[in-house]
């Protein structure tokens, strides 16, 4: 069939030849007096003054029209040292020092996450970045907090320290032997990711988690992130590509709230070429010029960036369009989903159903509150019903790893085969049915090495390979704190995108201990809910 889109009606306009202002005789389109020094949208010339007032107005109006930032509000500004955040620092500073009525009223403090431990091997300059960024902030008279990225692995939340020249020494003194261990854990965690895409994705999750934790520790209710329009547009498309489309609003909207911290994107309406002009005109340089945050290798994020920037060159409205598309989305609520998706509550609990029949048996009361992903802290998006991409993938995996086909026709395929292959699938199925139907909260606890393949069956009913269900003790193994969680248990409490991360990782035990703690808490809560569900109204 012809695959041409029948609705190819919204034509994207191709780029015309960009306006050339190098000759020096092009006048500003606004004041029609000054000589043009900047070209926006490929064709509009602006003089320096008109550009700067346009630029500052855009920034201030983004904050102003939201009416969210009030006089005296404390705001924690995340400061990577890149072009965007350096410009943000500059904008905030000039906004605060203006003596007119236009003065910005909030009280900023800055936070830099020191990621030197991720790059230490390549060069020793990483440490300098932290001091460079922080001293720049301090020189303007603001407080600058600094924390090392490896603190995300710590068991107890550590408070970021105020930057001093020897912050590293003092903070290391506090957690003396700890620091190296954390570094090692973090590197181990990141190197367990098998693809570049996942490693970059995980780094980003950890960075966000740490920023949130710092805000909570320092008791800041508001956080500024310096993502600009261009990076947000790239983010929109790459998040869609890695299955995180459900959380787009968190990256695009001016204000979002995660774990009671309000996150703002004050730079969201500014394009990166505008930032370049601003920096040029003000003589500002970014501390972080190297492309550290830019992703190398063959990651999806990099691929998306190349694609969008390429398309932008051909169709200048691409990035603004993508940005606006993302801006029109909101977090989907379950009842707003299409009617074709019958609600199935079991899918929240991972692949825990035996077959489709159980879908109908589930008590809808089981899902009372919307859980958050333990890894990225955003709402779970794994409850999309029986006819969904997630469910289809699970069915595919199940089918193509176990086809217990006799006679070739209407055979029910229940459960998963055990990886060793020695087990009789039928026996397990029987066993599972028995414990599944007898009492839901019953857990059999005998484990053998390979149970992971079947432990996601019906409420984690655990069976050994050959013997089927043995003793049915009522003890939940999760109450034991130090017992590691299997990937399947963790998977129940993470969102679609984080599941991809997790599956790639193989060993969920490498995750930050606070994440694992959250798994335990959520797991226990779902157990509790299961026990009392008959009495919930």
């Amino acid at each position, binding site marked *: 069939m012809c695959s041409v889109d029948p609705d190819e009606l919204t034509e994207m306009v191709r780029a015309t030849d960009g306006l050339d202002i190098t000759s020096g005789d092009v006048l500003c389109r606004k004041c029609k007096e000054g000589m043009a020094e900047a070209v926006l949208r490929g064709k509009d010339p602006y003089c320096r003054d008109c550009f700067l007032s346009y630029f500052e107005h855009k920034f201030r109006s983004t904050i102003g029209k939201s009416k969210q930032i009030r006089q005296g509000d404390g705001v924690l500004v995340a400061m990577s040292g890149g072009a965007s955040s350096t410009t943000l620092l500059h904008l905030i500073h000039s906004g605060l020092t203006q003596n007119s009525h236009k003065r910005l009223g909030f009280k900023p403090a800055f936070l830099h996450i020191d990621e030197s431990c991720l790059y230490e091997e390549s060069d020793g300059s990483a440490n300098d970045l932290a001091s460079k960024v922080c001293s720049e902030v301090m020189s303007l008279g603001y407080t600058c907090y600094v924390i090392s990225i490896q603190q995300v692995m710590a068991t107890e939340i550590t408070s970021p320290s105020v930057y001093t020249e020897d912050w590293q020494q003092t903070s290391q003194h506090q957690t003396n032997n700890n620091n190296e261990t954390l570094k090692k854990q973090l590197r181990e965690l990141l190197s367990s990711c098998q693809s570049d895409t996942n490693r970059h994705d995980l780094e980003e999750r950890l960075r966000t988690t740490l920023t949130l934790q710092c805000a909570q520790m320092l008791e800041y209710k508001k956080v500024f992130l310096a993502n600009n329009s261009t990076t947000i547009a790239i983010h929109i498309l790459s998040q869609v590509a890695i299955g*995180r489309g459900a959380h787009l609003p968190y990256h695009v909207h001016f204000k979002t709230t995660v774990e009671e911290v309000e996150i703002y994107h004050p730079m969201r309406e500014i394009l990166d070429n505008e930032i370049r002009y601003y920096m040029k005109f003000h003589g500002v340089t970014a501390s972080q010029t190297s492309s550290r945050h830019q992703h190398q290798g063959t990651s999806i994020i990099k691929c998306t960036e190349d694609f969008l920037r390429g398309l932008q060159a051909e169709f200048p409205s691409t990035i603004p369009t993508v940005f606006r598309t993302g801006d029109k989305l909101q977090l989907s609520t379950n009842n707003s989903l299409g009617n074709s998706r019958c609600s199935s509550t079991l899918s929240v609990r991972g692949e825990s159903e035996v077959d489709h029949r159980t879908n109908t048996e589930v008590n809808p009361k089981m899902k009372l509150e919307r859980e958050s992903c333990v890894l990225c802290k955003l709402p779970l998006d794994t409850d999309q019903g029986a006819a969904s991409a997630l469910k289809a993938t699970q069915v595919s995996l199940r089918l193509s790893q176990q086809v217990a086909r006799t006679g070739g026709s209407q055979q029910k395929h229940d459960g998963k085969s055990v990886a060793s292959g020695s087990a009789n699938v039928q026996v397990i199925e029987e066993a599972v049915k028995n414990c599944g139907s007898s009492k839901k909260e019953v857990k059999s606890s005998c484990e053998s090495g390979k149970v992971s393949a079947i432990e996601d069956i019906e409420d984690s009913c655990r069976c050994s390979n050959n013997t089927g269900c043995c003793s049915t003790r009522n003890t939940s193994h999760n109450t034991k704190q130090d017992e590691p969680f299997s990937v399947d248990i963790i998977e129940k409490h993470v969102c679609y995108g984080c599941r991809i991360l997790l599956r790639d990782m193989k060993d969920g035990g490498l995750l930050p201990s606070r994440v694992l703690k959250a798994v335990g808490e959520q797991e226990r809560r779902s157990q509790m809910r299961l026990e009392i569900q008959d009495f919930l109204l």
Partner: protein
Amino acid sequence: MPIQCSTGCHKNAVLKRPKTGDALCKDCFFWVFEEEVHHTITAAKLFTPDDYVAIAASGGKDSTVLAYIMKLLNDRYNYGLKLVLLSVDEGITGYRDDSLETVKRNEQQYSIPLKIVSYDELYGWTMDRIVEQIGLKNNCTFCGVFRRQALDRGATLLKVDKIVTGHNADDIAETVIMNILRGDIARLQRCTAIVTASEGTIPRSKPFKYTYEKEIVMYAYFKKLDYFSTECIYSPNAYRGYARAFLKDLEKIRSTSIIDVIHSGECFSVRDGVKLPTQGICEQCGHVSSQPVCKACVLLEGLNKGKPRLGLGKTSKIREHLKRNDENLEGVVASDADTHKINIPKTINIKQLDF
């Protein structure tokens, strides 16, 4: 040493599934492929027993495999469906007449009756003649707009309950990306729905929504299914091509990207207060349209008036033209409007939908 089939059937694997990476033997692949489509059909409750279902058949790989598998699953699982093949003849010499031969063979092979509706019958224009008028630049707009309605009209003539189309997972992921790129928020929300229907219209569904294009080709290849694979001779350099190239790049990096994109698409929900186009009814033909006069009528109007570019320009120009037309209608030029009305009978009332 040959790789064993991952299902443990002790046969040698012949392929690696793009969707999961598992190695499968031929028989297990067939089984898995069929079961998955069956799962999609049952999970999304696409049909009810005794439904009369039209399979949109173009002769290409997707629709050929769709026809085959609908027949097979209908027999295996007793869906109780009455099936019919529905083809649209756009009138493109060297492309459509060849692919229609394939559909006619399918009619014999699967013993499903076939109905062909042609642009010539429905609109009085073949694509070849339209291309003569408009050239190769915007011809695909005509073809696409006409085809969508043609399928609905054919379905109405047959009095079917449902239409199934061969759109696969790649198509849907591509559409999600394309709608993000061009900011089409209304379609972005619609395009991941497995069934598109609204009141008074024949529901359309996509049983291959979660099926990879590559696996469809594999299935057709190993089953030695007869299909036609030539690009349309008028095939253009469409904007969709960018989305497709991007998706292919993503797939190279991570083969599950296609499903991941669909998952993202399924999770979208449009913010309150965002204006979506409201769908009304075309004043002229009674099809559902977001404009007072639907696109097909405008395009046709342009063709019949010798102003083929009419429907391609600005909406304001179209309105202007139609307004002038109304005034003229009372006068001498009424004959044109008459032919127009013959072409588009008022009795048919189907929504134009799809992506």
